[in-house]
């Protein structure tokens, strides 16, 4: 795998799953779980 491909894979997975984790952490912080 080339370096650019590895970087783009990390960026893609990082942004999407990072975004999901950020939402999850924000939800916990705001303690809005029902």
């Amino acid at each position: 795998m080339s370096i650019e491909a590895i970087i783009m894979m990390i960026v893609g997975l990082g942004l999407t799953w990072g975004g999901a984790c950020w939402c999850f952490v924000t939800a916990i912080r705001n303690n809005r779980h029902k």
Partner: protein
Amino acid sequence: MSKREQWGSRAGFILAAVGSAIGLGNIWRFPYVAYDNGGGAFLIPYIFALLTAGIPFMILEFGVGQKYRSSAPRLFARLNPKWEWVGWLQVMVAAIIATYYIAVIGWTLNYVTFSLDLSWGDDPKGFFFGEFLGLTSSPLEFGGIRWPIFVSCLAAWGITWLACVSGIKKGIERANKVLIPALFLLVLLLIVRVVTLDGALDGLNYLFKPDFSKVLDYKVWAAAYGQIFYSLSVGFSIMVAYSSYLPPDEDVNNNAAMTVFINCGFSLLSGVLIFSVLGNMALETGASIKDVAGAGVGLAFVTIPKAINSLPAPELIGTLFFLCLAMAGVSSHISIVEACVSSLIDKFGWRRRDTVSFFCLGGFAVTVVFTTGAGLFILDIVDHFVNSQALLFGAIIEIILLSWVLNLEDIRTHVNSLSDFSVNNLWKKCLKYVTVAVLGYSILSNLHGDLVNGYGGYPVRDLMLLGWSLLPVSLVIAFWLKNQPATERFINKPAGGN
């Protein structure tokens, strides 16, 4: 009419929304679209589309669904009785999709059992189109019912019936709490196995190697917005129906963003899975990845079985792969049916059990057409025209009415008052301009393509009958449903007393 049902928990709602968004397209469409539109560079327009169209549209649908606590027809009727037909048009789109989507789920269920002994042998293509589908030579040459497909479709409709008839909390939420974690677990298990195969990294290199010249191509941007739009279940009444069961004080913005991020993250994981397998297959067969890469039915039922043949423990990997497809499909199908059922219940005040049974029986009767030897042809035409015309038409009217005619500021105030984080004016601009422009472009471009080139080489008569007629017929039925007498509470007061 009893009090409107509610989700049992926030996690239950998010899992159901994710289950609806994640479907067959995430697994068999996204990887190829990404590969075909610049590989890693495609992620730039894709993430941009996610932020400027996916999340804003999802927030809008969650917001209006939760605020008005109504299915799509009732939502539009409450905004203005003249607009009720827009909701019914979206429900018609959902109903049509429900009838053929289940056929593909039926195929995957068949393939779960075929995987146990690799029934497709050395010729997966001949097996799929010949022995399994018994494909005829044209869409109107039915060739009789294929009984294994008939039975698996009946079983799949039965699963949906069971989930929907049991209600929101005890049926749909419970089903998704099993299906979605199991789906993620299986996909992760498969990824761990296939990325270590010879050639897998070459496959991933093809998928993620960026071709930055494509970023300047407007068609790549259109593909990115199209992929985001089609994979999120927005614009055809599903997310409105699901969010109408949210408690009145539940978060909107964060739930919407989480749903979109998880859906898109899953698409990328699917890309890793599919291209690892394709990379291995290319190495084993000496072919180029360009030759083996594909999308849709051909990828799932021809290329992947062929690739599975050369994998270690092919029976196990094959079974798990088709189980993943089936679970992704079933969780989406449940949401499609629920969108239709909730609309009928809202309008006519029928009991859930009767409504679900009526819809599933009627739906299955139509699905029988897709179990015949001409099923794939008919499915191909109906799927193309529903997605490229009727769905987009219903969605753009929704977005125009909600963002241009309705006061979007009211919705923004509502969702911000409940949510973990707030959206600013940029959210309104994304909806009013970006989403409308992208949908408008897609409709015109699809219309032009279909008018000039036809579709799939099918005869014009067949396209007229099975494709072009869908939007006008759906509109007629939508207006007819709008004019039917409704329950007193349909327009006056939201169910549940909100």
